[in-house]
């Protein structure tokens, strides 16, 4: 049996008419992908050249054994806690921005679109908020952090503010999409019976989407933990700053310890998310 038994069928009606289209899109994908691979200098075989292999093994060998002396562990614990604190405070601040922006921008709570098309003013307001959310999240948190390090000085505060701004943009956008893809009928019914928009949110939209909203928020919190580490490299405190120091000293075993702590933190966030989802099911 051959993969493409085309030649066997003389009768054209027995041939899969989708075949030529499939070949076409495969070729298109290759044509698009090739320049991308060239421009990113994607050459995986350089990993396996003898010289590079030696450097890599040397670097990785330094990771073992991880540094486990008590003073260092204490330092790591303190900095890990600071990282989690930066992520949590940043996510919480982001929530404070994102929730009102979501409430204002979602079409689920639109009273004027209950009967036909949305009016002009509410439409413009919703578009403006959408643009604000794009603006907030289009600037990477690293750039915000560099800005805030200059404004509020080196330390966790810059990290918190950077995460708050970027994540407000992401949360606001995705919250809006979650609400809009959920069931609309319960909210519409309450609005049609004369309930207010905020009342409708709490009595219908929130209970209908609580699981999705919570799980996305916790996932974002997990991302914020990672982000706050990166922000540490530009002086925003936490585990990242320590990792930066250890890397500069070529102290692989300390880096290894911190990476292990990191894996544990992300695993913890994952557990928390599963647990919260189950509680809300």
């Amino acid at each position: 049996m051959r993969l493409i038994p085309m030649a066997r069928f003389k009768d054209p009606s027995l041939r899969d008419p989708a075949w030529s289209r499939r070949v076409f899109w495969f070729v298109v994908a290759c044509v698009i992908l090739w320049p991308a691979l060239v421009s990113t200098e994607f050459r995986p075989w350089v990993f396996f050249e003898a010289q590079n292999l030696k450097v890599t093994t040397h670097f990785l060998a330094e990771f073992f054994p991880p540094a486990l002396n008590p003073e260092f562990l204490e330092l790591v614990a303190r900095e890990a806690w600071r990282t989690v604190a930066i992520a949590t405070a940043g996510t919480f601040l982001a929530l404070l921005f994102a929730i009102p922006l979501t409430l204002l921008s979602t079409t689920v709570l639109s009273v004027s679109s209950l009967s036909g098309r949305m009016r002009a003013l509410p439409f413009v307001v919703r578009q403006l908020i959408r643009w604000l959310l794009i603006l907030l999240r289009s600037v990477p948190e690293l750039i915000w952090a560099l800005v805030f390090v200059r404004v509020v000085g080196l330390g966790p505060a810059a990290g918190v503010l950077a995460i708050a701004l970027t994540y407000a943009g992401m949360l606001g956008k995705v919250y809006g999409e979650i609400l809009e893809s959920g069931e609309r009928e319960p909210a519409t019914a309450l609005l049609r019976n004369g309930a207010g928009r905020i009342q409708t949110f709490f009595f219908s939209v929130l209970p209908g989407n609580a699981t999705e909203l919570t799980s996305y928020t916790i996932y974002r919190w997990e991302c914020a933990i990672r982000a706050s580490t990166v922000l540490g490299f530009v002086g925003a405190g936490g585990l990242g700053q320590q990792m930066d120091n250890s890397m500069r000293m070529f102290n692989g075993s300390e880096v290894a310890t911190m990476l292990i702590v990191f894996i544990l933190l992300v695993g913890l966030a994952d557990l928390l998310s599963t647990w919260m989802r189950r509680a809300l099911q």
Partner: protein
Amino acid sequence: MSGLRVELNGVTARHPAATAQSSPALDALTLSIEPGEHVAVIGPSGAGKTTLLQLLGAALRPSQGAVTLDQQSVWTLSTRQLQRQRGRLFYAPQSPPLPPRQRVVVSLLAAKLPALSLWRSLQNLIYPQHVDEVVKALAQFDLQEKIWERVDRLSGGERQRVGLARALLAPARLWLIDEPLSALDPTRARQAIATLLREARAKGVTLLTTLHQVNLATAEFPRVLGLREGKLVFDLPGHEVTSERLAHLYAQFEYELAQVEAPVVSEELPPAKREVRVGCA
């Protein structure tokens, strides 16, 4: 508190998704319903029954004509005034719009929202405030022991009765109830209609309900509207609706009448072969 007076004046309406060329769901309908009247709307599928309720519930804007509630033309009001007017009516769609993860008690309390301030309504989420009223409303539909259950743990029939019990808590003077019996067995259906009529009389509210159960409509309602292809075929007291009129109203849709007579066996017999028995309730 007395019922709402309802008037339609030459109202033509299309489904929101329909094109301008398609025939309207309701065609130049003129109708007046006095405060406290109880009206059943019958007619074959696609007659415009749901459209009629949506028009009266200010959920659908007519393409022509005026909808008047208590001498006030609905579509000349501002959004805010319209929303206040909507608080005086209760529109129950055919499938009860209840968030699946919400508890029955909160679903019912949600019907009270137009009468509550934002703060008062949020108090109900911290601790349910009007449990006695909720129990009383549920007891009318034999559901009092389900008060702390979640909506998605209820059967289809129970959910529909919860949807109806909401009407009893709504601060409304006009009840618009679409197909309240579609998920109920004949005994429950009879009880539910009796409860709705009794409560509507006690509160003095105007009641309009669409029904597929022709026998219940003609036996229980002082006024029955027969609707077909968007036009009013008859507007009579229930006891004057003869089987000839029904046969005329349901011509070519006889199987819908037959299903109504024997809802339990209707799935076993092919509908076209069953004999037509009408008006024997």
